[in-house]
């Protein structure tokens, strides 16, 4: 039962990274995509972004129902970065919707765009910082100490910052690749391909920096990585996918591209889960919070599982339908591919 809930939590997390990440990333990519890019991006994310972000709500609900102690611990220790994430989510969603629906262009349009782009970047950075702090192990469950030591130090450091930048860069990469198939004319498509390559390189470098800065903070990710066969396999597969994706950049194919990046992101997450498992939050004095020592009573897990299964039975077909209507039946990409050859 616990295993099933962990799997669903993991899946929700991966889907949020992939779909919510693509939405955040679209705001980052937009900064480099020019005036026409704004139109493509708005059109691409408007029908789906709200549904994409519900994966986060689902993950949070699973967390506070099944692992309440994890939720309350990070709520206290990481209050500041989480609050910034929330403000980012509010500003991003509102400014995007306002821009999409507001009637006239002009000065307000510029403000909406500025808020949308800045919050699209800041939110993933602070999401990454939050995750980084959960990994790093400077969170204390005992509430004794200075304000700085308890509520700032756990996340205000080089490793967490790099985690934040890695997250933003990964989201930008996902978005740029998704947008290749949303472009409406060849020059624009070229631009997204260039951006995809740029973000791929950036994400790769940031990934290496994550490991390096972890060593600086005395958190031995390299060791953990080499001790887990699953994560070695996953990360090798991620690297092996790169030539294939580069090939696809030259011969874009919507489905293959999206499948390839989906697989790549899933593997990155799996590799990371493999290193972490079963720890959710590393604690300063070694009282790590794991799936096992924080799980809710069996009756709760059982009811949660029923709700999740019934929910997924409803959500998955309707999600598929949503994407079929707006993403799969787009029909504009086949012509684009021909003009490229």
């Amino acid at each position: 039962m616990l295993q099933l809930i962990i799997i669903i939590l993991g899946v929700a997390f991966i889907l949020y990274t992939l779909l919510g990440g693509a939405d955040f990333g679209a705001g980052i990519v937009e900064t480099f995509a020019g005036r026409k890019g704004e139109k493509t991006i708005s059109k691409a994310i408007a029908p789906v972004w709200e549904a994409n972000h519900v994966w986060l709500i689902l993950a949070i609900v699973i967390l506070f129902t099944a692992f309440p102690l994890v939720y309350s611990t990070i709520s206290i220790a990481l209050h500041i970065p989480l609050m910034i994430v929330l403000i980012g989510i509010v500003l991003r969603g509102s400014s995007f919707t306002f821009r999409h629906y507001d009637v006239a262009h002009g000065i307000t349009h510029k403000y909406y765009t500025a808020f949308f782009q800045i919050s699209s970047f800041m939110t993933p950075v602070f999401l990454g910082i939050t995750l980084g702090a959960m990994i790093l192990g400077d969170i204390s469950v005992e509430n004794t100490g200075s304000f700085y030591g308890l509520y700032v130090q756990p996340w205000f450091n080089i490793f967490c910052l790099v985690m934040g930048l890695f997250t933003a860069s990964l989201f930008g990469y996902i978005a740029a690749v998704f947008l290749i198939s949303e472009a409406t004319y060849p020059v624009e498509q070229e631009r997204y391909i260039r951006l995809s390559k740029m973000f791929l390189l950036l994400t790769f470098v940031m990934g290496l920096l994550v490991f390096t800065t972890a060593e600086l903070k005395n958190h031995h990710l390299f060791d953990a990585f080499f001790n887990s066969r699953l994560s070695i396999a996953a990360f090798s597969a991620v690297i092996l996918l790169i030539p294939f994706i580069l090939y696809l950049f030259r011969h874009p194919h919507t489905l293959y591209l999206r499948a390839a990046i989906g697989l790549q992101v899933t593997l990155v997450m799996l590799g990371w889960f493999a290193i972490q498992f079963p720890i959710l939050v590393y604690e300063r004095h070694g009282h790590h919070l794991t799936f096992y020592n924080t799980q809710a009573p069996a009756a709760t897990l059982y009811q949660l599982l029923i709700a999740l299964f019934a929910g997924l039975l409803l959500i998955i077909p309707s999600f598929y339908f949503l994407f079929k209507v707006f993403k799969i039946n787009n029909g504009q990409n086949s012509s684009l591919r021909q003009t490229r050859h």
Partner: protein
Amino acid sequence: MDDLVAARLQMAISLGWHIVFACIGMTMPVLMAFSEWKWLRTGKQVYIDVAKAWSKGVAIFFAVGAVSGTVLSFELGLLFPGFMKHAGAIIGMPFSWEGTAFFVEAIALGIFLYGWDRLNKWAHWLSGVVVGISGVMSGIFVVSANAWMNSPAGFTWQNGKAINIDPVAAMFNDAWFSQALHMTLAAFVATSFAVAGVHAFLLLKNRTNAFHRTAVRIALSFGAVAAFLQPISGDISAKDIAERQPAKLAALEALYHTSQPADLIIGGIPNNETQEVDYAIHIPAMLSFLAHGDFDAKVTGLDKFPEAERPPVLVTHFAFQIMVACGFLLAFAGLLYFIFSARWQAVLEKKWWLTFIACLTPLGFIAVEAGWTVTEVGRQPWIIYGVMKTEDAVSPIPGLQFSFYMITGIYLLLTLILIWLMRRQIATVPTYYPSARNINE
């Protein structure tokens, strides 16, 4: 500012803000689906125009509702981690059902808003119906979680820990039905009357406009039915809290002394010093009847509770008076609407009637805010009634007032933008929808 006060105020602002969008999200899909159904049946352009124009406004409100709801799911922990540490496992179930319902709602709404040209007409309508149903369901689930705070069930509290957890019993606690019914009706009353009010205001400028006339008619029909039923649901709620939360009833009635029979106290200013309500109207024995269905029944007053366990009387009493006054005025307007549409349809075109409806625009939402104030402030000092105090649940992090100021500032700014944006949206309606053009233009 005290951290506890800051945390409570931030929660109040966040909830009070979100509830407006939640009400719109519960009600508007039903109204839109109804209008589209009329179009499918009659083929009249005006119905589809109304449905489409509404859907644009709903898209904006829904987005803000979705992000402000996300904020709440985090704030439960950010502000009251002591509460969520214990309550998460007990009331996670209604939250997970709420998550599911909201997920379906978000997906179906995406299809409804952007699928006008991509789907078969009836399939499109069906997506609207799905939005309506899942919206109401998600409201009911989340209210059930709140009801549990008023009427804790499904666990045993031992040595500061919850054991023998039964999530099903927690979800179907004694308060869930009366609260869910009252809130669902309130959402329909508030949203329908606000929508009718805005269209009535626009209709005053040109009284032959078919678009606004249709919109007013649809919104008022729903609003009138809901407003008419609301006092009945209120009575169920009152009898329920008289049994379960006598301290809350005493506070909202400002009943300082246990009485048999007890007077209904209307208005006035509760005075904690003298334990009297100054300048109030008393209706003899009426409270006994309303609370227990018997003019001779004994009603527990605040004197039966230790000082430390009494809710703030002034705020609760005032909020309750405001809620009831707004509710009755709207129920009265609903009654008039029934009478006029059955007998004197000409009245519905009159200037005074439209002015009256336009003036009612904010009342439903004022009642909703006041009602939540009653239920939340009336539960104090408890966060889980009789089990855990709010002060024991608040986050230990100092300086909570800063996040309160920040959230308040942001929500204030967004409110101003939303009002301004809606005005711009409304101004474009005649350009997009032929039926909204004035005939003499």
